């Protein structure tokens, strides 16, 4: 039998070349087919049919935190999915923001000539990197934030923000004609883009330097300011106020409530990811050789110019790819939200919605595909960026 196949293949080299691949392909198809068949049988037994029609049905469960998206129990599952996705992106954005700031500071302090500072940064990195993220999250949520005072004795930040066990309450911006203001900012950014382009062209042509930074600073201040003066834009604040809900229960009403789940998650994610970003930053700065700085100084650049024109472009080339990877990890790690009941994509959709509908295959697949698309989108962007900044050798 075996011999027969071998001689058969030996006579037809073209088929022999593709034979292992055909086998692999058949094997993959077989596995997928087998799983699909089993799933079909199982779903038939339970009386559910495969499909995405359930997304249009009424969700009939409430979500505790729904910024930006109008949501209540009467809305369909698709809307609940959207709320979850937005909440995931919110916590990822907050986490990325703070992790970057902290990571850069720690990474630079790690290289400080001051012994105490570099040692403390090193220990910060060693401590926070080597404790599981879930444990840190639980510590912030169940231990640290639970030790906060009740709303009645909330920690008061200059009568603007109030921090209590119920979360952080900050004033809400109430805009009239807010969209005009938004457009003016977009217009300012576009204008700045062209200013920078123009200065570069001018400098290449005539060698004259136009203070592009000052001009753009002016644009971004003046344009939005004009909207207040003549565009009919005005801004008021809605302050959170302490109200007595019942005999012993007090809470803040109004303003924007940042729920403790969000605070704990953002704290844990940024403190954890900052350690990895710090290492990336350190590697990047150490990757620029001393000779580069000396060469730049010898042609008469000022220290500021050396940093801006010589060190940073080279350091960023090393720093950015691994840092983006860390951003991606942070976004994926934000799914730990499910463990402390922050209503993110996993908790809302793969948790509550799945329990209610019982559609395991559809829901888990959608959830995984969502994360997968975020990952793939970021890696495509990354590859494009890498190609753009790669050293162009002639």
């Amino acid at each position, binding site marked *: 039998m075996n011999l027969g196949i071998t001689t058969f293949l030996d006579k037809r080299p073209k088929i022999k070349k593709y034979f292992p691949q055909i086998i692999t392909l058949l094997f993959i198809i077989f596995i997928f087919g087998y799983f699909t068949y089993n799933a079909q049988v*199982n779903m038939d037994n339970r009386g559910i049919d495969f499909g995405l029609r359930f997304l249009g049905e009424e969700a009939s469960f409430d979500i505790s935190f729904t910024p930006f998206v109008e949501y209540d129990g009467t809305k369909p599952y698709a809307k609940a999915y959207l709320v979850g996705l937005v909440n995931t992106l919110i916590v990822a954005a907050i986490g990325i923001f703070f992790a970057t700031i902290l990571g850069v500071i720690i990474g630079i302090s790690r290289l400080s000539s*001051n012994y*105490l500072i570099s040692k403390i940064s090193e220990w910060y990195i060693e401590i926070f990197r080597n404790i599981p993220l879930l444990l840190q999250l*639980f510590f912030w949520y*169940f231990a640290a934030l639970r030790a906060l005072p009740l709303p009645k004795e909330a920690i008061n930040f200059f009568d603007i923000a109030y921090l209590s066990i119920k979360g952080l309450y900050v004033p809400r911006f109430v805009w009239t004609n807010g969209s005009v203001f938004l457009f003016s900012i977009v217009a300012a950014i576009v204008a700045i883009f062209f200013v920078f382009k123009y200065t570069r062209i001018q400098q290449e042509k005539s060698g004259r330097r136009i203070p592009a930074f000052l001009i753009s600073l002016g644009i971004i201040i003046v344009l939005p300011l004009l909207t207040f003066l003549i565009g009919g834009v005005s801004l008021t604040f809605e302050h959170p106020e302490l109200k007595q809900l019942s005999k012993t229960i007090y809470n803040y009403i109004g303003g924007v409530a940042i729920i403790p789940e969000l605070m704990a998650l953002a704290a844990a994610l940024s403190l954890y990811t900052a350690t990895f970003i710090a290492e990336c930053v350190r590697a990047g700065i150490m990757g620029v050789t001393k000779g580069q700085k000396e060469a730049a100084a010898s042609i008469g650049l000022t220290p500021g110019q050396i940093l801006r024109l010589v060190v940073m472009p080279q350091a960023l080339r090393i720093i950015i790819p691994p840092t983006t990877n860390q951003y991606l990890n942070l976004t994926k790690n934000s799914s730990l939200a*499910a463990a402390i009941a922050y209503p993110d994509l*996993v908790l809302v959709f793969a948790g509550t919605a799945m329990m209610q509908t019982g559609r395991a295959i559809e829901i888990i697949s959608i959830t995984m595909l969502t994360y997968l698309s975020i990952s793939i989108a970021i890696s495509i962007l990354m590859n494009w960026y890498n190609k753009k900044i790669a050293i162009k050798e002639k």
Partner: protein
Amino acid sequence: MIKIINFLGTPSREKFSLFVPIGIFLFSLGLIDVTLNSLFDVNITSFFPRGLNYFTPLIFGFLGLYYLRIEFSGNKMLDKLNININSNWFNSILTLLIIFVLIQNIPPLLNWLIIDANFVGTTKKDCSDSGACWIFIKIWFPRLMYGLYPNAELWRINTSFIMLITLVVALFYIPIKLKKYLIIFLIFVFPFIMFNLIHGGNFGLVWVETTAWGGLSLTFIISVFALILCFPIGMFLALGRRSSAPVTRYASIGFIEFWRGVPLITVLFMASVMFPMFLPDGVYMDKLFRVIIAITLFEAAYMAEVIRGGLQALPRGQYDAAKSLGMGYWRLHLLVILPQALKLVIPGIANTFLALVKDTPLILVVGLLELVGMIDMAKTNPDWLGFATEGYVFAGILFWIICFNMSRYSQRLEEKYKTDR
């Protein structure tokens, strides 16, 4: 400003005996002020105006460090101090701030952790409010380590881990000739022995269902099994990704990128609710096994990328030389390429294992209780309410010791293999 500070002249070597005592005096005055302030609630500088009062230790310390900043003083210790923490005014302020923050925070922390903490006793009542209640950890310790595993059978878990450690340690000391066999035994035979010992059900061992497994031992059971199982899969995926055959290559790329693109939590959810749907009707698979399979597939994708890194680092000459000896694809890879590539990526494998250990607490979301899960359970026990902090601090310290040592070990390996080539 500088002139006022320099009323005694610039700090220099000539006036060493004048400036050093003044500097030390002012610096220690700052330290004493902060110490008294934060620990004993005594304010020795209360005669200063209120706003200034807050900054007095900083000002004293700053002046002290300024006077101490004598270049080439001739005193070795002072020179070393100046270079390391007192090189300019900015550094000296940072130094002072760090020292003050440490003085303010370390003693209360130590108080809570050790000095005021409670170690003796058996119930919640033996704990005072001022310090940590380590009695909680003491009472729950067996549960935190072994989960709900029956007390009488604990020796089985202990034995299997002692055997594992002995075998791994033995690996470093036995002669090279036997090493091969020991590795094969460790990878292909030992997991079954260990599993059988813990799971029981035959050879006169009582059957312990997997829902009773838990605690820190579960972390290691899952990590060890997932690591052993993900290794061969990762190897094949890495080879597949570098293969010239499009079907194999794209299948491997698809597999790797899929698992690397999704968070572990969704993978665990998949294992717990979606995977049973894919099994034939009537076939039931234990949740723990489903989770181990899921983690294995997840880690295999990361392992594949690590191994691929090693394969890429090998020079082309190795392939050409092996081919010129007439070796086929498998012999080439098994005898020439993989042994070298794997040696290159040992640190990477150690890092993957570290990430795996750090990721295992996540299995809590599907209802398996390892260390963190057991603490979650213990803290909601009516007799022991309100000790969440102690539990998490304990688990944090334990995990930190494990992970820190592993990361140090992998760094050492990295250095070792860097010089080898």
